[in-house]
């Protein structure tokens, strides 16, 4: 009975804590606006096939006659090209919406997997301590001393092109951040009484780690994960721009920009311009939210 009471209490504190965190978060209007923007982008990305004016992958819908039209022009049959068309007569707005869908999917999937992987490694290091901790953290340190772009480039160079390869590269780049972050907070939590109590009850290790340690060591990870999603989007775009990322058949935002690069010099600026604006909006909105979350969840930086 006593145990059940503690659990109920725990759940309540979680709710209260989350509510308070959101309240504090909402004090910044910029951050709320950014959060709204992210939700909007996510909705657009998920509903892409219904929202986009045309299916940019369906070649039968494209009319080569409409190639490289500037923004706000109309096609022969009167369809409005809000952001212009590319060299194949593809509506840029549709291409951007579908590109955003791919960019966000890649980034979110990679971040999710890296988060789980990194959290497991970090928790293991913190809970086991001693030599295991030293070895794992040394690996993390070495990896973090190399820039993400370099690791990703090399991995993609060895593995080859493709969406799955990019996801693997992004996971390999990210996991170490989560491992280090959760180890830091788990080391603090580990010394608290409730962990001692849980261990005193002779609960199995996995239960102590995942039911007691993990939930309490998790909040700092939210901040890191938010910022890392933004990083992942930028990194995927960079790899794709360099021609080492996603295949040409399913262009992400980075590849759309790379395609526009060639037509920029001859004056068709919009092909490279608008996909970049979409990238900038997505990344900046996520960073603004991450920045505010960091202020709210990290008491050291609080006003």
């Amino acid at each position, binding site marked *: 009975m006593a145990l059940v009471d503690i659990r109920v209490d725990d759940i309540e504190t979680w709710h209260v804590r989350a509510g308070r965190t959101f309240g504090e978060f909402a004090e910044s209007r910029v951050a709320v606006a950014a959060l709204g923007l992210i939700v909007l982008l996510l909705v657009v990305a998920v509903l892409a096939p219904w929202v986009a004016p045309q299916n940019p992958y369906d070649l039968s819908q494209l009319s080569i006659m409409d190639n490289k039209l500037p923004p706000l022009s109309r096609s022969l049959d009167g369809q409005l090209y809000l952001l212009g068309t590319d060299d194949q007569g593809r509506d840029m707005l549709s291409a951007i919406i579908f590109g955003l869908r791919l960019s966000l999917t890649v980034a979110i999937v990679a971040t999710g997997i890296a988060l789980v992987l990194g959290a497991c490694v970090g928790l293991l290091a913190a809970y086991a301590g001693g030599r295991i901790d030293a070895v794992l953290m040394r690996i993390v340190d070495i990896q973090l001393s*190399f820039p993400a772009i370099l690791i990703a480039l090399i991995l993609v160079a060895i593995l080859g092109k493709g969406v799955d390869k990019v996801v693997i590269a992004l996971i390999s780049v990210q996991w170490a951040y989560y491992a280090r972050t959760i180890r830091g907070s788990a080391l603090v939590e580990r010394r608290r009484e409730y962990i001692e109590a849980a261990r005193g009850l002779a609960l199995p290790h996995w239960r102590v780690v995942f039911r007691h340690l993990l939930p309490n060591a998790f909040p700092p990870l939210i901040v890191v994960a938010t910022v890392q999603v933004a990083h992942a989007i930028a990194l995927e775009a960079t790899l794709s721009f360099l021609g080492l990322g996603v295949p040409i058949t399913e262009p992400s935002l980075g590849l759309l920009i790379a395609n526009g690069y060639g037509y920029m010099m001859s004056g068709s*600026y919009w092909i490279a*311009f608008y996909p*970049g604006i979409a*990238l*900038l909006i997505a*990344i*900046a909105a996520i960073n603004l939210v991450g920045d505010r979350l960091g202020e709210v969840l990290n008491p050291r930086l609080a006003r």
Partner: protein
Amino acid sequence: MLAFLFRRFGQGLFVVAVMATLVFVGVYALGNPIDILISPEADQLEREQAIERLGLDKPLWVQFALFVKSALTGNLGISFVHGVPAIDLILSRMPATLELAFVALVISVGIGIPAGLLAGLTPRSLIGRGIMTGSILGFSVPNFWLGLMLILLFAVELKVLPAGGRGETVDVLGIGLSLFTLDGLRHLILPALTLGIYKASLITRLSYAGTRDALLQDFVRFARAKGLSERRVVGVHVLKAILIPVVTVIGLELGSMIAFAVVTETVFAWPGMGKLLIESIYRLDRPVIVAYLIVIVVMFVVINFTVDLIYTALDPRVRLSGQEA
């Protein structure tokens, strides 16, 4: 102090060894080494000769020993495309990259520290908040796209700066540099700005946090209580406190700039080692990729080592904790 240096040096060697092993595993063991190391245009006889010459018929540990041995003598293979030793190719491209990275670093520090200090001193003012929001935009903007937009504005629309290349170079101590000719400088400014903006935002944020932290510390309060002028408090005491983290980050960022130059160099057709890497990846010129990796790992270890030294000199507490451990 000496013991600390030796231990750091040993750690550096260890990292190089680990990375070299990983490179070996990645290039020689995981993939098919014959495909990787022998040009695809080679005929059957050439293939067999090459297999024997490279020792690919020997057991893996012998191959590893051979790889280490030739790497130690500076032989990292011959480029398939250029037909010259890969290491020479990398070293000949290195000055261009280093020049770009250094100028970008100067730009980012020149913008970052004053902006961060200003924002940290007046966090609630319009300027302070503007700087901090601007810094978020600065590190959110995709680097390669920023480069494209600068080209679009200054080279295509305004036609005042060149879109790419390195321009005229001048030999300084036998190394060609663009920094000292007007034409070279005109070519350098856009890529250096592109590379510098991202880091400028990071340094701004770091200086901002450092300034706000320092203002609450006892030594700043004490300096104020002593009646020192605001200029002296900020210019000496606060600045000194924020320099410690900034120096560390600058060191690490120099390394990351060299890596990030890969993207900038590709956008601006800047003939550095980053562009060479991308070209080599396209053309499957694996010896160059391997050589680039080894060179960059050694560079990183050297940079990290130097940062540690500067850090130790700046902050006496590090030295103490270093000796205890």
